[in-house]
């Protein structure tokens, strides 16, 4: 049977880009469908009735939702270029940090860049707190990277792909909002990793254009929390 792989995504979303990165790494052909999230297609609603969100991977008519669940499905279905290690403890570790990034980092980064509106006197303090929180989270990732080239070791793995929000989107958020978070002096390893990460072909080909993303973010969320 001819294999059919569809990916429903949004150009700016790190989550749907993760799916494309994994497929690209494994050399899997797929058809990409761009969703207008303000006007979701009947297909998306059919394939992901529970969350009505992207990304959705549809493999021979069978839908899989939730980006980290999709990454595991991709790794189990197409065995070339594995993105998870073989050792169960290392697999658990990769999953732990991927979950950490999704549950802790993104919202903290967003808060530091575009946070809530506060009265002037409080704004500075709240902003500093938000920046400090991101710093602490990034430090944990810096420590986790150790001396490895990628989180996955010598090659890009599931955690690197899940960390695409840190490897590329964070830099874009920083530029769009004027808030500095991932500095070279504090996070040399993470910065090196980010540079290497975006150079990997399968990753590079799946990054949304920087200027377009910055314009979109500024338009959607405003000028950002950089001290004026």
């Amino acid at each position, binding site marked *: 049977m001819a294999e059919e792989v569809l990916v429903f995504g949004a150009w700016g979303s790190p989550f749907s880009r993760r799916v494309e990165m994994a497929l690209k790494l494994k050399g899997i052909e797929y058809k990409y469908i761009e969703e207008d999230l303000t006007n979701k297609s009947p297909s998306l609603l059919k394939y992901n009735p529970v969350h009505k969100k992207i990304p959705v991977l549809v493999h021979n008519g069978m839908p899989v939702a939730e980006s980290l669940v999709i990454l595991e499905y991709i790794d189990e279905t197409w065995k070339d270029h594995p993105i998870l290690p073989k050792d*169960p403890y290392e697999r*658990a570790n990769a999953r732990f940090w991927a979950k950490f990034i999704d549950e802790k980092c993104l919202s903290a980064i967003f808060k530091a860049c575009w946070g809530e509106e506060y009265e002037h006197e409080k704004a500075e303090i709240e902003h500093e707190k938000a920046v400090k929180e991101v710093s602490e989270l990034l430090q944990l990732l810096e420590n986790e990277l150790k001396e490895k080239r990628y989180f996955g070791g010598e090659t890009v793995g599931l955690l690197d792909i899940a960390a695409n929000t840190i490897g590329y989107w964070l830099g874009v958020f920083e530029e769009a909002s004027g808030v500095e978070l991932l500095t070279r002096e504090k996070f040399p390893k993470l910065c090196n990793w980010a540079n290497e990460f975006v150079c990997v072909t399968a990753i590079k080909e799946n990054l949304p254009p920087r200027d377009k993303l910055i314009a979109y973010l500024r338009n959607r969320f405003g000028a950002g929390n950089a001290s004026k």
Partner: protein
Amino acid sequence: MAEDSVKLLGYWVSPYSLKVKWALKLKGIQYQYVEEDLKNKSPMLLQYNPVYKKIPVLVHDDKPLAESLIILEYIDEVWKQNPLLPIDPYERAKARFWAKFADDKCVPALVAAFSKKGEEQERAVKEARENLKILESGLEGKRFFGGETIGFVDIAAGWIGCWAQMTGEIIGIKLIDAETMPLLDSWFQDFLEIPLIKECMPPQDELLEHCKELHTKF
């Protein structure tokens, strides 16, 4: 395998450490259980889970693991008897999806129904019921999520039935309706009747007392 090579740090009331107990029991794994006082966390817990400082933590050959669903997957990969996850990748993806849905969508709504008042509580109750109904669809008419026997999602989410019932009793609003969610209701009942599941549960009356007391603090 020697008992002291597997240690579980847990809390008697926590459904999260309960899930891990169930998985270990299902696979017949000997382990040492360490009860944590969450108001006075042990240096061992803080050392083993520095990121979240929470239970459960599974320690296997001195290597710590945190986050209950991740622990379940680890247990399943190391000890192959009585598998939790199915073999087929698509079925595995569905199992992971529903376990995540239960944790991300059903649990917070239940917690809010328990802890909030007035309109906020009404909204939380509505959301809890809606999400439980959606969870029911994941059963696909089967007896258990795992089919004829319990699997990953049953272990991950089966506790919700007992806690939802207790919450309903305490707040005076029914959350699981046998009429509107017949399959979910029978699933919860069947699950809690399984001997190994029942054996690991904290004593019901003590659990209820604890939750009632917790509720007065809100």
